[in-house]
């Protein structure tokens, strides 16, 4: 990572934890996991709480749908680390790799329901252009999505607009496919806390 403190500035107990994770997972500790352990009182603790609430808290969207939103927002941002991490998690959660690939390649022709498609389209516009208007929201609501689901999708978008920026600014190392699959298993078993 571009800041040396994020590579080696951790407390001894945290370094030991990283060594144990690496030993048992047989994969390097992902930089996304490391970041939240650096001065956790500044960023990590509250970031984990928010991200867990957005991705695993109560919502009418399934975990698979929310991971797909995370992968989609990351694709619009061209955030390589987050695209790989959350497309792996979305594939495992949905057990439907072709659907995940289709959404990320061409949302308009992908085999998903109208509500999810309209929601992803709105998140993509917000992420790319920095704005959406009432017409954008009417289209999502008229596709059968509830107001609360829109708010929940905006929370997912906020989590990954934040994490993706940090991944690219700090320079998270892109893992091997096996590393991303192991990370995805962890996120589905334990969540983001």
């Amino acid at each position, binding site marked *: 990572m571009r800041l040396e403190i994020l590579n080696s500035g951790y407390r001894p107990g945290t370094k030991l934890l990283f060594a144990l994770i690496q030993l048992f997972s047989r994969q390097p500790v992902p930089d996304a996991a490391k970041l939240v352990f650096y001065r956790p009182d500044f960023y990590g603790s*509250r970031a984990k709480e928010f991200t867990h609430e957005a991705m695993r808290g109560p919502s009418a969207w399934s975990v698979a749908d929310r991971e797909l939103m995370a992968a989609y927002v990351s694709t619009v941002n061209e955030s390589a680390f987050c695209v790989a991490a959350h497309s792996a998690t979305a594939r495992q959660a949905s057990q439907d790799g072709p659907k995940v690939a289709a959404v990320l390649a061409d949302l308009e022709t992908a085999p998903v329901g109208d509500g999810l498609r309209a929601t992803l389209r709105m998140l993509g516009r*917000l992420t790319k252009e920095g704005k959406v208007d009432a017409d954008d929201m009417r289209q999502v609501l008229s596709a059968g999505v509830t107001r609360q689901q829109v*708010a929940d999708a905006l*929370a997912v978008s*906020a989590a990954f607009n934040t994490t993706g920026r940090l991944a690219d600014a700090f320079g998270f190392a892109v893992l091997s496919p096996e590393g991303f699959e192991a990370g995805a298993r962890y996120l589905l078993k334990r969540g983001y806390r």
Partner: protein
Amino acid sequence: MLSEDKKRAAYRALQDRILNGEGRASPEQRARAFGNDELSQPLAGLVGKVATRPTQVTDADFAAARAAGFSEDQLFELVICAAVGQSARLYDAGLAALADVVGEEER
């Protein structure tokens, strides 16, 4: 209006901490990084990229900020403020557009 949901409240707690809690960068610098506003170079270049084109951040952006006297811990904080600030603006823009529709329906 939608009530302030638990997810937005959790993001607000993160915003409040990074802006108003203890830090190595001054609260004024953190607020400016969060707002991507009123910063001088070289920090303005780094923060602007984090906010609007993060894939274009380079080692040289960090090197320039270090050479201007910013410590690694200050840059850690200011980059986080820039990322959270931009995301908060997007989040609020989305919720505001949703509130507009809900408001119309209730009139």
